[in-house]
C-alpha cells in the first residue's frame, strides 16, 4: 500500500490533503473524521475582533462562486485561549493563519501565536478582500520580503507564506518569500473578482469585490505552482480548484508537496476524506510506493514532437 505521508519542511503530514484556510473549521468534525487529514488549517485570525464584511458574502457565477468574508473572528487572545484548544483535540498538525495590515503587527501576532499546540504559522499576506487593490504584502517583492523577514525574526515556528494569484509576477514574489526565510509557500489565495447584478445594477456582494473560488482556476494555479517550483527550493502547497484525486496528482507532478482544498468541501462535506481514499487507490493501482515520488515528476523535458513542428520549435 502506498505511503501517503509527506514532509513539508520539518512538518510531517500523514497525507498531502489539507483544508484551505477560510474554508474550514473544527466544526467539520460533525461530518468527517478530522484525524484523517494531512493537516488542520484554521481560519485567518487578526489582532482585533472583526465582524467581517457586509452581506451578501457569496454569489454564484457561471464558472464558480465569488465570496468576500472579511476575516471575521474574535481576535488573537480569544483565538489562542479558545480556538487553538478546539483544534488541539485532533492529531494532525495545526496550521494557524494570520493577517494584519502592518508589518510590525504581523510579526507581533506571529510571536503571540507561537504556542505549543500550534505547529505552523501560515502568513496570509494575500487576502484579496482586505483592501481593494488585490493583496496586502504579496503583490510586490519588497513588501513580501519585508513582512516575511519580520515574521521570520519573530518566531521559531515554521512559517508558510500564502501568495496572491493577483500578483503580476508570482515567481519573483515567491523567490522573495523564500529569501526572507519562509519554510513553505501556499499558492494561491483567491482571485479578485466582481459580479454586477443586471436586475438592479448593483454589485452582487455587500463588499463589492470578492475572491473567486472554482475548479475553473485549477489550470491557472497549477501553472503558477509549476513555474514557482522551478525557481524555489522550499515546499509548495497548491490551492485552487482541487475536487478529485487526480487534481492532487496534477499539483504534485507540477512540484507541490501537498494541496489545500476549499470549494470541494463546501460542495461535498465528505470530499476531503474521499479524495484521500481515492488518492490511495490511484497510487496503488499504479504501483506507486510513495506519494512523494510524484513531486515534480512531470515529464516536460523530452516532449515528443512531430518533426516538422519540432523544426519550428522556439520560433
Amino acid at each position, binding site marked *: 500500500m502506498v505511503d501517503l505521508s509527506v514532509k513539508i519542511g520539518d512538518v510531517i503530514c500523514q497525507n498531502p490533503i489539507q483544508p484551505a484556510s*477560510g*474554508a*474550514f*473549521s473544527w*466544526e*467539520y*468534525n*460533525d*461530518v*468527517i*473524521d478530522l484525524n484523517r487529514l494531512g493537516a488542520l488549517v484554521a*481560519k485567518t485570525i487578526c489582532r482585533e475582533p472583526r*465582524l*467581517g464584511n457586509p*452581506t*451578501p*458574502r*457569496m*454569489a*454564484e*457565477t*457561471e*464558472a*464558480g*462562486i465569488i*465570496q468576500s*468574508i472579511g476575516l*471575521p473572528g474574535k481576535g488573537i487572545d480569544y483565538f489562542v485561549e479558545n480556538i487553538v484548544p478546539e483544534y488541539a483535540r485532533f492529531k494532525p498538525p495545526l496550521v494557524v493563519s494570520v493577517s494584519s495590515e502592518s508589518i510590525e503587527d504581523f510579526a507581533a501576532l506571529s510571536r503571540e501565536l507561537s504556542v505549543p499546540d500550534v505547529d505552523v504559522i501560515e502568513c496570509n499576506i494575500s487576502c484579496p478582500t482586505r483592501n481593494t487593490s488585490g493583496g496586502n504584502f504579496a503583490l510586490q517583492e519588497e513588501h513580501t520580503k519585508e513582512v516575511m523577514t519580520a515574521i521570520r525574526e519573530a518566531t521559531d515556528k515554521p512559517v508558510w507564506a500564502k501568495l496572491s494569484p493577483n500578483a503580476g509576477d508570482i515567481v519573483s514574489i515567491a523567490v522573495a518569500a523564500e529569501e526572507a526565510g519562509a519554510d513553505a509557500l501556499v499558492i494561491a489565495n483567491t482571485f479578485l473578482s466582481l459580479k454586477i447584478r443586471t436586475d438592479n445594477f448593483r454589485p452582487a456582494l455587500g463588499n463589492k469585490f470578492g475572491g473567486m473560488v*472554482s*475548479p475553473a482556476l485549477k489550470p491557472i494555479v497549477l501553472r503558477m505552482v509549476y513555474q514557482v517550483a522551478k525557481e524555489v527550493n522550499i515546499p509548495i502547497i497548491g490551492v485552487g480548484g482541487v*475536487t*478529485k*484525486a*487526480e487534481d492532487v496528482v496534477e499539483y504534485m507532478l507540477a512540484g507541490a508537496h501537498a494541496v489545500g482544498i476549499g470549494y*470541494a*468541501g*463546501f*460542495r*461535498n*462535506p*465528505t*470530499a476531503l*476524506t*474521499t*479524495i484521500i*481514499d*481515492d*488518492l490511495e*487507490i*490511484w497510487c496503488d*493501482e499504479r504501483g506507486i510506493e510513495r506519494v512523494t515520488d510524484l513531486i515534480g515528476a512531470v515529464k516536460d523535458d523530452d516532449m515528443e514532437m512531430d518533426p516538422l513542428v519540432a523544426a519550428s520549435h522556439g520560433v
Partner: protein
Amino acid sequence: MTNLAPNEKYTNSAIRPGEPDPYPQKPVGEYITDVVSNNWVNDEYKLMVLKAPEKALTAYAGQFFHLLCPSPDGAEVWMRRPMSVYNVDKSAGQIEFLYKCEGRGTKGMGTLEAGDTFNVSGPLGIGFNLDPAWKNIVVLGRGVGLATLAPLSLMAAENGVGVTAILSARKTELVMSEDLFKGIGAATIKVVDTDGSSDVSNVEKILEGLILNGKADAFFTCGSSRLLKLMQTLGKSHGVPGQVAMEQIMVCGFGACYVCMRTFEVDGAQTLRRVCREGPVFNMQEAVGW
C-alpha cells in the same frame, strides 16, 4: 470503498450511489438518497419525498438539510441549497421537503423524479424548542415559511400543546398545508392579500385576540420580515416569548465559512450570528429584520 479507479465514472471525488455513510458515528451525514416522489401540490409548490438513512431521520422541526440540487438549465449549480425539513416519517424511513420552484436550485430540484437519486447533507442547525410551560402557541407564517412551521406544529401537538396557525399567502389557492395543520387539531386562520385580511393591522388584531384569550404562550414565525416585526412588537409589550426561523445565502452549512450571517441585537448591542450554526431558529426578540 468501491474498486472503481477514481474518476473512471465520476467527475469528482465525492460520495457515490450505493456507498454507505462513511462516518455513521457522526451526527451529520452526506447521503445519496432515493427520490420516492416529487409532485406539485399547487401551481407554485412541490413536495419531495426522499428515502433517507436512519441518521437523517433524527431531524427535528426547524433543522435543515443542505441539498445538492441538479441544474435546471445545463449550467452548473455551484452551491448546495439549505432547506428546512417539512416532515420526518420515521416508520417509512422518509424525509419530506415542501418548496417553491423559484430560483435555479429549487427549479433544478423540481426536475427530479421518482427513482432518481439526490445528494443531501444533514440534519444541520438548531431547530425549534418547546418550553414545557407553554400550553398554547401561535404560529404565523407566510408562503413557504409555513413549510418550516408545519413540523413545529406537529411537534407541539404530539406534546399536548394547542396550536393556532395563521396562514398568510397572496391568494387562497396558495395557502400552504392547511390540511396538515387541521389534521393535528390546530385552529387555522387564513389571511390573504386578495381581500386585505393579510394586512399587518388585521393580523395584529388577530394576535391581540389570541393573547387576550390565553392562546399565545409563545409566538413562532418564518418567511416574512414584516410579520416578524409585528410579533416582536406584540411579544415585547405583552411578554410573549418567541422564536423565528431565518434564512440567508449559505455555503458550507457547518459554521466554517461565515457566509450566512444575520444581525441580532443582544442587550442593546448588535452582533452577527451564523444562520447555519447558531440557528436557523433564533430568539425572536434578538432578531433584526431583513
